[in-house]
């Protein structure tokens, strides 16, 4: 209908604006979809950082997928709707500050018989429309697209910055090489003929043996030799009064064909491998660290991405924190793991009180840690812990220290984050001041690298990481959880 000679100009303008609005809607829909997808990615990453359990993460991913699908469907359905003429006119009014002139004219155009003043207004609006150009009515979609660009840019930056913390899981060959190199280096660094070198030899043999040997049914496997030569000390009770710790994994393939309460053969193999890794690393103070371990512990990362700085009592003090100092002698560690497993087999509750550890106050020095360690006699008596492998060859009594080597260093056990080299500490090879230094346990067992939890720093995330890490053997997982809980007390 043409109510005035110039009304066609108004109709053409409104039609063009409607087309422009549809295109703008399409862009807005695409932008909204990008924003929805980016938000889902952001939420998923935040959920992963928060340490949600895997099933919750799966549910969140499904929810995000559904949200994106619904958003896409709704957005494109909205974009595909025809744009009413009055809506286009209102947009033009707002764009040109025409004070509802074009929208009113569009409304009057739809009337079957416009009144005289309505026709006058249509004529006026058509005259205005003839002078107008179709603007790019795209403020909303610009906002959406800008929001999407900012969101995705931030996500990309985050991804680039955080990708350095992700490294592939170690494979068996890498683990073997690392452990063998670690053992060799340790052996070379020890005094020739000392008890420590003998222990290192024994540990290295066990490591290589455990890596090359497939998991066989434990009790009948000929290679299932006891980890510790003192594993036959079945009479040494542990602190809880239970059976001797050495009767668990080591005594199983013994003369009696396996204790009824002991672990299965595969468990024994796993326990032996765990202990072998731990043993090798306990002598590994001077060993070179693999690159991937370094990256796991934050070396090479920007300072904001590095793990929280925690100093070891060995290297100095840590302000405001107290750590559990754990006797890292092989026998003690073996006894600890065995005792935990034994207690678990009896239905006992974890964690057990630390039998080989002491709390050290903040500011503790290595000497404080040494003094805080249990006496050698009590160590053997209360824990039932087997003496280190080399000690029997020296003919020492159970739990006695090597008079030549002196007390072994006391170390901080498993911690959720890597240590960092304290200021003033003599740098190790490849380390700089302030660089993260892996804990003994991280060096001890390669799979323990995953203790660098993906979530925010804290014991909960570390515990979750320990629980869910498939590379951890049950024994190491138990021990890690135990130490973690003990430190939390």
């Amino acid at each position, binding site marked *: 209908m043409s109510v005035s000679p110039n009304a066609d100009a108004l109709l053409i303008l409104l039609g063009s604006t409607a087309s422009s609005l549809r295109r703008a809607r399409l862009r807005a829909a695409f932008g909204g979809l990008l924003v929805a997808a980016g938000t889902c990615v952001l939420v998923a990453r935040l959920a992963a950082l928060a340490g949600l359990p895997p099933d919750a993460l799966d549910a969140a991913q499904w929810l995000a997928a559904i949200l994106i699908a619904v958003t896409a469907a709704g957005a494109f359905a909205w974009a595909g709707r025809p744009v009413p003429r*009055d809506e286009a006119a209102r947009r033009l009014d*707002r764009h040109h500050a025409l*004070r*509802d002139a074009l929208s*009113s004219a569009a*409304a*009057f155009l739809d009337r079957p018989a416009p*009144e005289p003043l309505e026709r006058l207004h249509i004529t006026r609006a058509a005259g205005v429309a003839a002078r107008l150009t179709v603007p790019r009515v795209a403020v909303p979609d610009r906002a959406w697209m800008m929001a999407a660009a900012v969101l995705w840019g931030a996500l990309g930056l985050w991804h680039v910055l955080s990708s350095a913390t992700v490294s592939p899981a170690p494979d068996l060959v890498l683990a073997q090489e690392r452990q063998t190199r670690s053992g060799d280096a340790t052996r070379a660094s020890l005094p020739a003929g000392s008890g420590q070198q003998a222990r290192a030899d024994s540990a290295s043999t066990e490591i290589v043996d455990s890596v090359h040997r497939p998991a066989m049914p434990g009790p009948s496997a000929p290679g299932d030799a006891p980890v510790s030569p003192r594993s036959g000390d079945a009479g040494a009770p542990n602190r809880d009064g239970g059976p001797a710790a050495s009767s668990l994994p080591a005594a199983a393939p013994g003369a009696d064909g396996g204790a009824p309460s002991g672990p299965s053969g595969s468990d024994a193999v796993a326990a032996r491998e765990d202990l072998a890794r731990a043993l090798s690393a306990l002598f590994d103070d001077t060993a070179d660290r693999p690159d991937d371990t370094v990256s796991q512990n934050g070396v090479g990362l920007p300072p904001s991405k590095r793990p929280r700085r925690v100093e070891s009592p060995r290297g100095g003090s840590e302000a405001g924190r107290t750590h559990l100092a754990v006797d890292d002698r092989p026998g003690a560690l073996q006894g600890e793991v065995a005792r935990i497993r034994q207690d678990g087999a009896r239905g006992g509750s974890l964690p057990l009180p630390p039998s080989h550890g002491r709390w050290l106050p903040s500011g503790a020095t290595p000497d404080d840690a040494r003094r805080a360690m249990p006496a050698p006699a009590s160590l053997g008596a209360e824990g039932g812990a087997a003496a280190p492998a080399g000690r029997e060859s020296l003919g020492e009594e159970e739990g006695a220290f090597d008079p030549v080597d002196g007390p072994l260093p006391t170390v901080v056990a498993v911690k959720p984050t890597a240590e960092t080299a304290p200021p003033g500490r003599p740098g190790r090879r490849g380390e700089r001041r302030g660089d993260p230094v892996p804990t003994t346990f991280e060096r001890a067992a390669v799979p323990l690298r995953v203790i660098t939890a993906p979530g925010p720093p804290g014991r909960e995330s570390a515990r979750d990481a320990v629980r869910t890490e498939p590379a951890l053997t049950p024994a190491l997982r138990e021990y890690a959880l135990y130490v973690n809980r003990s430190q939390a007390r």
Partner: protein
Amino acid sequence: MNIAALEAQVQDFHDRFHAARTALATMIVGNAAAIEGVLTCLLAGGHGLLEGVPGVGKTKLVQSVAEVLRLRFSRIQFTPDLMPGDITGTTMLREDAAGGRVARFEPGPIFAHLILADEINRATPRTQSALLEVMQEASVTVGGVTHRLDPPLCVLATQNPIELEGTYPLPEAQLDRFLFKLGMDVPGLDEMRAILDRTTSSDTVQLQEVLDRDHVLAMRTLARGVPVAPSVRDYAILVALGTQPQSGYAPERVKRFVRFGSSPRGAQAIILGAKVRALTHGRVHVAAEDVRAAALPALRHRVLLNFEGEAERIDIDALIGGVIAGVPEPSR
């Protein structure tokens, strides 16, 4: 009617309105909104209630309007002893030519074009109610006979918000019949200077007559014909409904402090005032800004606060402003 003639009418409306406003401004210093509101009431076919403290020029404004528009003017000073018959007129016995006696209606002062109801709240409700029929139907019924009043009819009432002793607040039904309630502000420093210069010297201000009755009637007809788009009409409706606490469109503040909101007359007043305003701005369609400008004077006397609102001394203008701000504009 062709488009060119309509254009001329619209332009004439615009020019005459501004001429009247300019003429009134030579007599009334300041209070431009009140001047424009009075003219809007007159051209929209409604009545106005002027409120202000004594001495701000309420009566002078109405007298000036009558003079500028060359309308038949009548002033009624409302007092407590004023009777309805004193306003509407009464039937009196008269002697005819034959010497007989006949009952004849003597029109009261209400029979005029522009009526100044001065201090309307000083009369009793019975007398105030005499204006109800006049303001709504433009007629007077006396002795069973209805007398039509000659258009244009505009009642401009004044009241003093301070002196409450011996006054009778206008009932809601009476208030609802006023199109606008306009406030007269106390003049400021510059305005006081101008007032003193004009009123204390030997020079007298001569008002210019710019309109007459026919002009006013034509302008009323034109204003009534201004079209309103449905979206703008709905915007005005939502604003009016927003003052009703029982409606779903009222904001929380209205629900808490308001006892009664605007009646449908409020929405009518908004649209009528917006139409006149659109023409005064040279437009032949009502825009949202016209609705916003007309909403406050059209609604402020139609909103009654509840006890809590009175106790909290809620400012009704601010309350209505919140309602207007809360209603989405039709262009959004």
